[in-house]
C-alpha cells in the first residue's frame, strides 16, 4: 500500500515538474535556433549582395555594349542602362526588406523580455524575406545568363 502511495506521489511530482522543465528547454532551443537562423540570414544577405552587384554591373556593361555595336549615341545608351536599372528595383527593395527583417530578429534576440512567439514570428518573417531575395537574385542571374527572358 505504502509503495503504491509513494509511487503515486512520484508520478504526481514528475507530472508537475517535467512540463515546466520541457518548456524551459524549449525556450532556450527557440532562442538558439533563432540565433543560428539570424547568423545564417546575415551570411545569405552578404553573399547575395556580392553576387547581385557583379550581375548588376555586368548587365549594365552589356547594355552599353549593345548600344556601342548598334552605333547608338549617349542618350540611347543611357536609356538602355536605365532600363536595366528599372529591372533591378524589386531586387534592391527585397534587399531592404530582408535587412529590416534580419535587424528586427536580432533586436528581439537582444531583448531579454522578448516572447518566444515574437522571436518565432520574426524568425519566420526573416526566412520568408531571405527566400524572396534568393528567388529574385536567382532570376536576375538567370536573366543575365540568358536562361530566362
Amino acid at each position, binding site marked *: 500500500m505504502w509503495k503504491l502511495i509513494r509511487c503515486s506521489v512520484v508520478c504526481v511530482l514528475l507530472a508537475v515538474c517535467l512540463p515546466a522543465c520541457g518548456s524551459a528547454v524549449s525556450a532556450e532551443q527557440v532562442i538558439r535556433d533563432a540565433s543560428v537562423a539570424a547568423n545564417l540570414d546575415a551570411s545569405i544577405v552578404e553573399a547575395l549582395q556580392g553576387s547581385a552587384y557583379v550581375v548588376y554591373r555586368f548587365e*549594365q556593361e552589356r547594355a552599353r555594349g549593345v548600344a556601342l555595336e548598334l552605333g*547608338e549615341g549617349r542618350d540611347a545608351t543611357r536609356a538602355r*542602362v536605365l532600363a536595366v536599372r528599372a529591372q533591378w528595383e524589386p531586387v534592391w527593395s527585397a534587399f531592404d526588406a530582408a535587412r529590416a527583417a534580419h535587424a528586427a530578429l536580432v533586436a528581439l534576440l537582444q531583448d531579454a523580455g522578448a516572447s518566444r512567439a515574437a522571436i518565432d514570428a520574426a524568425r519566420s518573417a526573416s526566412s520568408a524575406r531571405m527566400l524572396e531575395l534568393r528567388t529574385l537574385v536567382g532570376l536576375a542571374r538567370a536573366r543575365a545568363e540568358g536562361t530566362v527572358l
Partner: protein
Amino acid sequence: MDLDLNTAIACFKAAIEAAPLAASVLKAAAELFARRNGLDPVKLIVGISADTHEQIDRIVDAEIEAASYPTGAK
C-alpha cells in the same frame, strides 16, 4: 574618439568606395568597431551596405559621359 552612427557610416562608406575589393574586411572591421564603441552593429552594417548599387550606377554614369559616340548618333 567618439563617433555617432551616421559619421561612422560615412567613414566606412568612404573607405569601401576607396577600396571596394576590401569591402568584406572593412565590414567586419565596422562590426567590431560598433561593438567596441557602443554603436548598433546591425545599423552600421545596414547603413554601409545600403546604397552600394548606387555607387555602381555612379561609375557607369561616369563611363557613359566619358565615352565617345559616333557623330550624329542620339
